[in-house]
């Protein structure tokens, strides 16, 4: 019922409008705020459903707004953007429920949910972006919308974390802007086209194209937490749990990874990137990040800090997938975009539950947590197994395809990287499970705020991790199902490689 050219814009607006309304809302209007949040989330889910059905039928959707002669804000839905939009919409719904539960008695909730909705609008806009200009606009808007969330608590170290976050992301933003403008001055308006649109410039501008590639990757790498640029992620853990869950597992970090995938496939095109040797460089960078992230995670006692470093390494799998020449590796990388999101958000939800219910923040305090909060810890277990890559959870599928793609492309050292990182994952996740299930619970929990009634914790806190854990399991078990992330990733890979 919504005309084709308005659907993408409508999807962005379904979270932007409630967000702006929430800002205007008084602090005490909890019910109205919750209603606004939920209607926004459900409306977006419905519209995304329409979008998926439309893209499946091959219809194309495009909303266009000319900002200036030659500069258009374009939102259109191709296979890759639909995948990322679906992921962020589903997880936004779940996280909103979780956030409502989590922030039960805390101040400044209007401000929180307002910026929370703006973040999602920016993420969705970024996913649906049809050209590099729109991508950069939403990429910067995401920085703007997330800064207040990281600084939400108002404590000095929240302000410090936010300042560091801002320094990195604005610096990255400027690099991305320079690269995008430089590219536009060479190739005119940069539109995302399957198979890349820069092949015409191949011969003459090679050096400039390489420089531009590194500028773009550096700009995107900040948010994708590639090694030298990942410093902000652990410090941003000072934000409340829903922020760490949605933003630092799905929205912000994925925006960077999604950008890298866009640049490699839809701007440069795999063939050109391979011929310029860019893929090899990206692969090395990604591998270093994977190993580095896992190694640092080993020594982190804070649960959220450990998960943060795990995110640093896991996100680079996507970059690794993009940097290996071959459809199978692409499938692995793209599907990991979804799988990592689902699994990591489960882990952050569980971490939030422990902190909120028992006041447990450190891994060393997690003895016997399994007995006290069985369902949360079960979800934690499913998530961690997925992270390590143990079947049948989703993580196994993406690592399997990545390994297969690496072998096919003949770069065996990537297989070595995958194996070592899986071992490292096990090294820093199993102690958590061991403590949780097999160790004796302490006499008194550090700060038990919610008593163990019929449910181990508040309903709104318990169900989200369980649901996402089930999703992770389903993505692993029913990978071959028609509308599963894996199927969708294969569709994307086919279109990118023009098979």
């Amino acid at each position, binding site marked *: 019922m919504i005309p084709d050219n308005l659907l993408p814009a409508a999807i962005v607006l379904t979270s932007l409008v409630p967000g702006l309304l929430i*800002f205007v809302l008084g602090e005490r209007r909890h019910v109205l705020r919750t209603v606004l949040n939920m209607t926004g989330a459900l409306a977006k889910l419905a519209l995304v459903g329409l979008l998926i059905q439309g893209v499946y039928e091959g219809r194309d959707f495009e909303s266009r*707004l*000319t*900002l*200036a*002669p*030659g*500069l258009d*804000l374009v939102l259109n839905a191709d296979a890759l953007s639909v995948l990322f939009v679906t992921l962020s919409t589903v997880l936004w719904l779940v996280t909103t429920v979780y956030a409502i539960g989590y922030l039960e008695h805390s*101040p400044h909730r209007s*401000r929180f949910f307002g910026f929370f909705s703006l973040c999602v609008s920016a993420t969705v806009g970024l996913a649906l972006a049809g050209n590099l*200009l729109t991508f*950069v*606009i*939403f990429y*910067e*808007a995401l*920085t*703007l919308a997330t*800064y*207040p969330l990281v*600084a*939400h608590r*108002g*404590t*000095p170290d*929240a*302000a410090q974390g*936010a*300042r560091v976050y*801002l320094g990195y992301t*604005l*610096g990255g933003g*400027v690099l991305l*802007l*320079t690269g995008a*403008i*430089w590219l*536009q*001055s060479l190739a005119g308006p940069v539109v995302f086209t399957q198979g890349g649109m820069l092949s015409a410039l191949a011969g003459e501008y090679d050096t400039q194209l390489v420089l531009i590639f590194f500028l773009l990757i550096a700009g995107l790498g900040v948010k994708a937490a590639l090694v030298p640029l990942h410093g902000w992620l652990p410090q941003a853990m000072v934000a409340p749990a829903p922020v760490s869950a949605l933003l630092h597992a799905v929205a912000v970090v994925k925006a960077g990874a999604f950008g890298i995938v866009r640049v490699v496939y839809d701007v440069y095109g795999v063939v050109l990137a391979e011929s310029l040797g860019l893929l090899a460089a990206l692969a090395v960078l990604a591998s270093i990040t994977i190993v580095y992230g896992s190694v640092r995670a080993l020594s982190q006692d804070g649960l959220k800090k450990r998960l943060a470093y795990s995110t640093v390494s896991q996100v680079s799998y996507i970059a690794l997938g993009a940097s290996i020449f071959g459809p199978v590796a692409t499938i692995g990388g793209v599907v990991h975009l979804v799988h990592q999101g689902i699994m990591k958000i489960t882990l952050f939800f569980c971490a939030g539950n422990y902190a909120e219910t028992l006041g447990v923040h450190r891994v060393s305090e997690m003895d016997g947590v399994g007995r006290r909060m069985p369902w949360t810890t079960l979800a934690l277990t499913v998530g961690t197994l997925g992270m390590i890559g143990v079947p049948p959870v989703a993580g196994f599928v993406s690592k399997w395809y990545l390994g297969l793609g690496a072998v096919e492309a003949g770069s065996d050292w990537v297989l070595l990287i995958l194996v070592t990182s899986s071992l490292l994952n096990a090294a820093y996740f199993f102690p958590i499970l061991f403590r949780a299930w097999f160790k004796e619970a302490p006499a008194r929990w550090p700060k038990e705020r919610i008593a163990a009634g019929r449910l181990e914790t508040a309903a709104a806190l318990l169900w989200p991790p369980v649901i996402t854990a089930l999703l992770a399991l389903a993505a692993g078990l029913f990978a071959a199902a028609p509308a599963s992330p894996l199927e969708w990733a294969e569709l994307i890979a086919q279109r990118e490689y023009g098979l």
Partner: protein
Amino acid sequence: MIDWLALTVALPLLGAVFAVVLPTRARGIGMAAALLTTAMALSVSVQVVQGITLRSDLGGWGAPLGIGLQADGLSAALLVMANLVALGISAYALDYFDAGSRRHFWPLWLLLWTALNGLFLAVDLFNIYVTLELLGISAAALGALTGRREAVAANLRYLLVGLLGSMTYLLGVALAYTGLGTLDLGLAAQALTPGPLAWTIFALMLGGLLLKTALFPLHFWLPPAHAQAPAPVSAALSALVVKAAFYLILRLWLDLFGPVAGPAAGTLLGMLGAGGVVWGSWRAFRAERLKLLAAYSTVAQVGYLFMFFPLMAAAAIPRRQELFGALVLLALTHGFAKAGLFLSAGLLQKTAGHDRIAELGPATQSLPAVAFAIGFAGVALIGLPPSGTFVAKWVLLSESFASGQWWWAPVVLAGTLLAAAYVFRLLANAFGPGLQPGAAGGGDQSQCLVPIGRAVQAPALLMTLIAVVLLGLGAEPLWTLLQEPPP
């Protein structure tokens, strides 16, 4: 038949006159004149958008003898911005001033408004001089309204520097009349041929105006004058008065000195602009007080405006039209954003009793609407999307790459990062600990916060919203408005 252009100038003048003779009702008269003048300016712009270039020869004597008023795309765009911002400032000033200084503010404010409208419509060289003087004198008088020692000293220096600039400009006019035999801009342009006379007139007129638009290094007088003035006045000074002088430079550069102003002059202005961007942004970052920060930010933004000149001088016609549109968009966005920032600064100063940035935490938190206004103004000053500045900087940067003059790009980017640094230093206040509900007096900041009504916060928020949303996403019609390419 109604002479729209003459009315746009006559109405605020009449308003000022009645405000002088009826001081007790100065506020009411002032607001009425403000509304009427804005309506007039909007109707002029609507007619220009419909493709009619309005021209009225006052006194019916025609070009060489009489004085004309003209409104083309450029003047219509700036007229709309100036009048909307002035309306916002007037609404804000309604209850900003106490009874004593109210009767002084309104007449001078309406005279300043008259001068602004007069400048945007002027096409006679000597008439520009008289209007510039009216602008300078009323601005300096308004700036010294608080009567504090630093304010009077700063505005005296502003007046003297302004006079120096005007005298230099007047000498240029005298030589122009001597050499070209006419004072009308259009006729002078036809008579002007590159030569020693043309360069001298160019140097004199632009030199005088550069002093008045505070382009680095001639900006020394601006920060103290704008920081000491009362909030609505400093909003007008930074957003409008400086902009009017820039408009004149642009008008003379395009219409009169087209053939004379070669790439060399453009590059010189560009370099001075680049210096202004870096120096202004750095001093704004170091500023301790909010209004001083906003004043130095003006110096930086004026620098950006001048960085368009070298690129426009070297660009081919179609590309020059895009750059011209981006330049006007940047000027408009800065007008709204800076006015919004100064008005918000005024509110914070009224609430907290001071404007030391480090201690504005509680005040910023107690006024959410003002915090958002500062946020939007910050977005527009840095040039983050979705503000108009972002689009303008995108065009500027892509032209600096495409035309090979890549050295402008690092300056713009450095300026952007510095702007981000000083804006987020402000916004960090909004998230600081501030007055925790129930905290005992908030520790040492036990200053009580003067409550501020919601109505007075509206103009600042509205103006910055225009700068970010309207000019960011809906700026496309601006290019059609400026369609007829400058000669």
